[in-house]
């Protein structure tokens, strides 16, 4: 008898683990550590709903999970992934009547090429890609060389290069004066040569997010970083500076979108508007350290927390700065070329 009751206990415990919710739920899929967590609870309290919060580590793994049949109400893809999802008709239009906070956003993050009227996406965080350098090891006069400084022999062995094919080719194409979205195979070939030479002569170390800790420790003189990460590094290590070369760079926008098959689009629109309120936007940018998309919060940050931090403000007056365009063929070509660069 005792054993049977133990069995019942196990089954009971197992069933308790997957408790059925009768109240409304909102399923959110966001980047890891990309929100002030208290806001989730506040949203739940305000709307009397349950938020199921999942996280991913890259646009591609988010896409895979989506394609495996997982259903979400809110996703946070980056620009080119928004474009891909729009092309594949996987998104539904936002309800502009609910999104009253869209009007308070910075003009430079709205109406981007990947979603011209923000029909499907609302910006969340944004930034660019640039160079982080140690003022004690780098002669600031050399910065005039722009991206070419990455191939300057006097900094041999002093460079962290971001291990991402798209960013690597963006840098090479910009250094050569081309568009980062070029489909011209001759230009891509030249970019490949540029990267190959860098790889062969500079002893660059290829890193991803470990660059953050390494640059805080000041292990090398120059690193390719995202502006949001740079803003954080600058707070931790005062001898670091950030700059985006004049030849242009990539501007990225992480956005909030509602999938076509969302179960609760009404609540999803409310979530987007909630996250874009002045209070939520401020707390998110303070918590995460990435640049906010709200004009008032942006101005306040530049006068407050990030007054001496030149990585927080994103450059908007350079016509050569571009947002990535999604193109399946180009993606394949640069992926193969990047593999060749690193293999040689």
């Amino acid at each position, binding site marked *: 008898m005792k054993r049977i009751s133990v069995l019942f206990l196990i089954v009971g415990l197992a069933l308790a683990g997957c408790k059925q919710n009768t109240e409304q739920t909102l*399923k959110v899929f966001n980047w890891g550590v990309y929100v002030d967590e208290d806001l989730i609870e506040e949203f739940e309290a305000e709307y009397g709903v349950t938020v199921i919060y999942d996280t991913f*580590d890259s646009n591609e793994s988010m896409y895979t999970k989506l394609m*495996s049949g*997982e259903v979400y109400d809110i996703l946070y893809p980056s620009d080119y992934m928004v474009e891909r999802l729009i092309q594949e008709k996987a998104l539904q239009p936002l309800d502009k009547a609910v999104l009253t906070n869209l009007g308070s956003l910075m003009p430079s993050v709205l109406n981007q090429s990947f979603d011209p009227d923000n029909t499907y996406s609302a910006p969340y965080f944004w930034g660019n890609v640039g160079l982080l350098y140690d003022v004690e090891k780098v002669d600031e006069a050399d910065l005039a060389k722009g991206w070419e400084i990455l191939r300057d022999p006097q900094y041999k062995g002093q460079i962290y290069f971001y291990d991402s094919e798209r960013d690597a080719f963006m840098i090479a194409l910009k250094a050569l004066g081309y568009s980062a979205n070029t489909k011209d195979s001759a230009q891509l070939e030249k970019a490949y040569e540029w990267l190959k030479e860098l790889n062969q002569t500079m002893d660059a170390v290829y890193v991803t*997010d470990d660059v953050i*800790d*390494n640059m805080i420790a000041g292990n090398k003189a120059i690193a390719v970083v995202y502006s949001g990460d740079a803003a954080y590094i600058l707070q931790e290590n005062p001898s670091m500076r950030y700059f985006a070369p004049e030849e242009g760079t990539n501007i990225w926008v992480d956005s909030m979108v509602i999938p076509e098959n969302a179960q609760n689009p009404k609540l999803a629109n409310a979530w987007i508007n909630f996250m874009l309120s002045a209070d939520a936007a401020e707390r998110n940018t303070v918590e995460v350290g990435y640049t906010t998309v709200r004009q008032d919060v942006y101005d306040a940050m530049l006068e407050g927390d990030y007054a001496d931090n030149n990585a927080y403000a994103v450059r908007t007056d350079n016509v050569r700065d571009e947002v990535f365009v999604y193109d399946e063929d180009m993606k394949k070509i640069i992926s193969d070329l990047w593999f060749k660069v690193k293999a040689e």
Partner: protein
Amino acid sequence: MVGSKRNLAWTIILITLVLMFFYLPIMSMIVFSFNSSRSLTSWSGFSLEWYKALFENREMMSAITTTISIALLSTLVSTVVGTFTAIGISKSKRLIKEIILNVNNFPILNPEIVTAIGLMLLYTTFKIEKGYMTMLIAHIIFSTPYVILTVLPKLRRLDPDLAEAALDLGCTPLQALLKVIVPLIMPGVISGALIAFTMSFDDFVISYFVSGNGVKNISILVYTMSKRINPTINALSTILVVIITIILLSVNLYDILKKKDLKEKE
């Protein structure tokens, strides 16, 4: 004499090196859990703030509960199922035994990612909503073969007459099973359960593909934090290391005390 002294010195040096190789990563992780800044590699002072942050982080606390409850439940189910299957196998004909054992080895030899994708597709095909139950079932599936494999050798060494003797002496078949066979193979069952528990506790690949709806274990959480890993992870790992050390110490002490006790009785 001189030669053996030199050998001893070499032994000590080698053992120290090997131990350092094993334990330095864990030591550095423990040290940085007390760091006062957010960095994982540059030390800036002692603080307990990451331990505080750990217990205040609702996402992390729920990941911990999920990990532990899934590990306990899947261990329980897979140990019971695995043990009885092993007993069944040991009593079958040779051919059947061979076939079942090979089938059992398949998931063990199969790369984890294949099992993971297979389960994910299965759940998707049958429109089973991914969450706690799907993860639990997956964990039971991948730990059971290990339990079977650890229990079987114990059964092979078991005297087949014992069960019959129990039946002769008036035991019902169930009693014979639970009071004679199971206690005799208990060491195998326990090591099977321990393997099942650790397999479930640190599984990432399979869990990642079969979970959803906000259900995640510690491994999945850490993986998705990639960009902003902070010392809360170190704090969590430190607590786990301490717990494991305590468990190992008490198990070993218990064994030693028990042996001492037996000797004194003799």
